[in-house]
């Protein structure tokens, strides 16, 4: 109906084309409002952006309001309501990419395309933008070209890539994976190295596909949870909640349909171990989810795959298809009557906050990724208000290994409170960046020796939300009793500026704050500005004191983990590198944010006279 009316009202057939694209996308998603993310992504691939006409059409087709669609679309960095170039080149922006020369790569792309970063070429072929960490810290500088990842870029590559893309045949839809899909141009640098440097005894102990599931099926669901509890497995995303307890709580919750969710958002800058797991041993991840499905009585599993990892989707889907053929997915798994379990992959669209489990659930439901207030916890009311266990990719692999080899074997590794091993993603000033499986309890010193960076000036443990560790604390241990981490280890050598890094991390939180709560929405910007005053050599002792107090308020008052850790880049560098701040401070009791003379320079030059009043400083 809508399509016909649109076509009749307009001489051009563009509106009806939009309506038909939307109609198809909505149909594929089964007219399910909670699949709004898939619908919008599909529309964007077809049209290059999400025009107002498409927003209205989606709303009409789903029977919701346009404002609800806009709410969701405008939230995600990878969804756009403005036309973008046919090839959207997004350079990864992290302290690591900058130290590896990303600014030079940006200049090279600007030259090759002929427009500055943040804009689109006049022929509509290219858009150039920065994007936050894309999970390639081991092979920066890296970029996304639509969905394709290019890594280890050198400035000379920009011209080659741009030239190849200019040759791409014009088709109606956006080439999602230029250089990879066999249709378009062949691009250099599209290989994502695995970077598995040191496999260890647990995660990379080779179990056969489905072995863990079959082992679990010899136990009752309660016995499976009991095993996981005895293994002392704690969540590998970094928060460290006991997995056995989470599963027990979830199993006990009453609901119509329990859900198993795999958190593959891996958004913490500097981490990429989940990418390696999903590349190297996806079956171990799916086995773990299936084991959880059995233990919790869940029939539905969801993998939330961050938008940056879209290139992994088809290979993961192929693995799932294989598993279905082998009886490891679908009905009566491994021949067990009544044990049905299906896994669906949901792609994200560029939002760090979706790594937070309740935001992730909101995003899975096709909404903006705003966290929920707890209680209720997801184990009570999660996905579609049903009992839901959300666990990290690595946690599921651990669950698989525990089923294969037993809880006692697992607790034989690690420390008292941190059983097993941990994957760490090491990047930065380090000769061998990559993934290492290390025993819990390893000191930062031992880790630095292992990766070949004993001279490190400082180490960022756990990404921006973690801690900036100084050499005096290199004796500290990786583990839940000391340095808890999801596994991001960024190494900074002598000569790196700790405050510059803190500033980049502060900017990251400004861009990634979801905006739901005041302290994080406003506080992240105020923290960044406070640090900028100090970096501009206009900071006084009073500014440091005020910044510290502000950081405390943001930490204490914010609603979710993002805001509660957003001040860490500033607070932990203040604590561990006070000299870096002291060196920047001015002796005056107070200086305004901007220099009056600087602000009036142009006016002074034009008028040819000095402002009245005595010596306003600098």
């Amino acid at each position, binding site marked *: 109906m809508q399509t016909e009316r649109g076509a009749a009202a307009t001489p051009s057939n563009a509106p009806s084309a939009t309506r038909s694209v939307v109609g198809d996308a909505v149909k594929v998603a089964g007219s399910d409002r909670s699949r709004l993310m898939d619908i919008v992504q599909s529309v964007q691939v077809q049209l290059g952006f999400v025009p107002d006409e498409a927003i209205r059409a989606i709303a009409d087709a789903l029977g919701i309001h346009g404002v609800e669609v806009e709410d969701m679309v405008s*939230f995600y960095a990878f969804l756009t309501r403005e036309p973008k170039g046919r090839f959207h080149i997004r350079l990864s922006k992290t302290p690591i990419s900058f130290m590896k020369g990303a600014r030079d790569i940006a200049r090279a792309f600007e030259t090759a395309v002929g427009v500055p970063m943040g804009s689109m070429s006049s022929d509509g072929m290219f858009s150039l933008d920065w994007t936050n960490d894309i999970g390639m810290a081991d092979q920066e500088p890296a970029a996304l070209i639509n969905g394709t990842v290019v890594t280890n870029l050198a400035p000379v590559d920009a011209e080659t890539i741009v030239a190849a893309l200019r040759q791409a045949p014009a088709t109606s839809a956006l080439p999602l994976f230029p250089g990879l899909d066999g249709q378009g141009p062949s691009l250099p640098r599209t290989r994502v190295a695995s970077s598995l440097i040191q496999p260890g005894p647990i995660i990379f102990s080779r179990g056969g596909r489905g072995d863990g599931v079959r082992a679990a099926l010899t136990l009752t669901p309660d016995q499976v949870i009991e095993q996981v509890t005895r293994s002392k497995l704690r969540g590998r995303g970094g928060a460290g909640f006991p997995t056995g307890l989470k599963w027990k709580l979830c199993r006990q919750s009453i609901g119509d349909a329990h859900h198993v969710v795999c958190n593959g958002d891996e958004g913490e800058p500097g981490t990429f171990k989940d990418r390696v797991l999903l590349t190297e041993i996806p079956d171990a991840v799916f086995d773990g989810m299936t084991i959880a499905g059995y233990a919790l009585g869940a029939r539905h599993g969801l993998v939330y795959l961050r938008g940056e990892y879209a290139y992994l989707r088809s290979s993961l889907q192929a693995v799932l298809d294989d598993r279905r053929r082998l009886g490891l997915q679908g009905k009566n798994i491994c021949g067990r009557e009544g044990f049905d379990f299906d896994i669906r992959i949901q792609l994200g669209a560029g939002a760090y906050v979706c790594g937070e489990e309740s935001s992730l659930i909101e995003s899975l439901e096709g909404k903006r990724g705003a966290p929920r207030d707890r209680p209720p916890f997801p184990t009570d009311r999660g996905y579609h208000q049903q009992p839901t266990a959300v666990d990290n990719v690595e946690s599921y692999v651990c669950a698989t290994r525990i089923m294969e080899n037993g809880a006692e074997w697992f607790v034989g590794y690690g420390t008292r409170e941190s059983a097993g091993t941990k994957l760490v993603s090491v990047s930065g000033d380090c000769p061998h960046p990559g993934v290492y499986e290390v025993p819990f309890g390893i000191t930062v010193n031992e880790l630095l020796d292992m990766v070949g960076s004993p001279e490190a000036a400082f180490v960022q443990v756990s990404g921006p939300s973690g801690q900036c560790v100084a050499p005096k604390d290199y004796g500290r241990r990786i583990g839940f009793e000391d340095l808890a981490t999801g596994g991001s280890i960024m190494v900074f050598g002598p000569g790196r500026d700790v405050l510059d890094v803190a500033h980049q991390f502060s900017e990251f939180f400004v861009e990634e704050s979801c*905006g739901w709560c005041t302290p994080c929405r406003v506080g992240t910007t105020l923290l960044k500005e406070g640090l900028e005053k100090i970096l501009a050599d206009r900071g006084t002792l009073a500014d440091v004191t005020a910044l510290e107090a502000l950081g405390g308020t943001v930490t204490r008052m914010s609603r979710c983990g993002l805001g509660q850790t957003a001040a860490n880049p500033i607070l932990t560098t203040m604590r561990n590198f006070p000299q870096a701040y002291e060196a920047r401070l001015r002796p005056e009791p107070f200086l305004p944010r901007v220099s009056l003379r600087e602000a009036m320079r142009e006016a002074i030059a034009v008028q040819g006279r000095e402002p009245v009043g005595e010596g306003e400083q600098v």
Partner: protein
Amino acid sequence: MSGETFTFTVDGVEIEAFPGQTIIQACDAAGVYIPRLCYHPDLEPAGHCRVCTCKIDGRRSSACTMPASRGMVVESNTAELNADRRTVIEMLFVEGNHFCPYCEKSGDCELQALAYRLGLAAPELPYQWPHRELDASHPDIFIDRNRCVLCSRCIRASRTEDGKTVFGFERRGIHMRLNIDAKALDETNIAAADKAVHVCPVGCIVIKRTGYRTPYGSRRFDQAPIGSDIEVKRAHHPAKEGR
């Protein structure tokens, strides 16, 4: 209200609650005021502003979303919490463009009243001077986003009370804004009688030609500080004092 009542304490005062009540609901009923901004008694809580953050059994959480439970120990009126609340209110002042002296909501504005109650004389945090859109298209209703505090009261009220979904959010972080379900407000089916129009705590959504019916000086918070209407209930039940 089903189930047996139980008690918990707020700053040492014993509060009676029904199962299913949040901390703020139970406290309001008992005449104990916890500062809040985005919470509205007729709407589902949303946990935006964090002003009602309390220490609950030692952990911070928003009183508007946390269910009360037996024996809970809540700290609310402490110097530490009030200082953090004051900073959060200050953040809202510098985030938008708030000019109390010529705002028609002055004296009836919950943001302004909270600032007075919490002792915020003038913000010291840097003003952000954002560009915010106005919408004067509707014959009866005026929207000035300069004064919006993103509390979502209008969004929630329009959806659940009016059944219209005229409002929503757009974008994220510091760029988040109040959005409407059309290009301009007069293209929506909003009406001046809607709940969504009457729940705005600040001067963002106002009804045209009514702003100065009550003169400055005779308005709600000119008479008594914000929260007085709640606290007066407790004054009538002095026996409940548990200190």
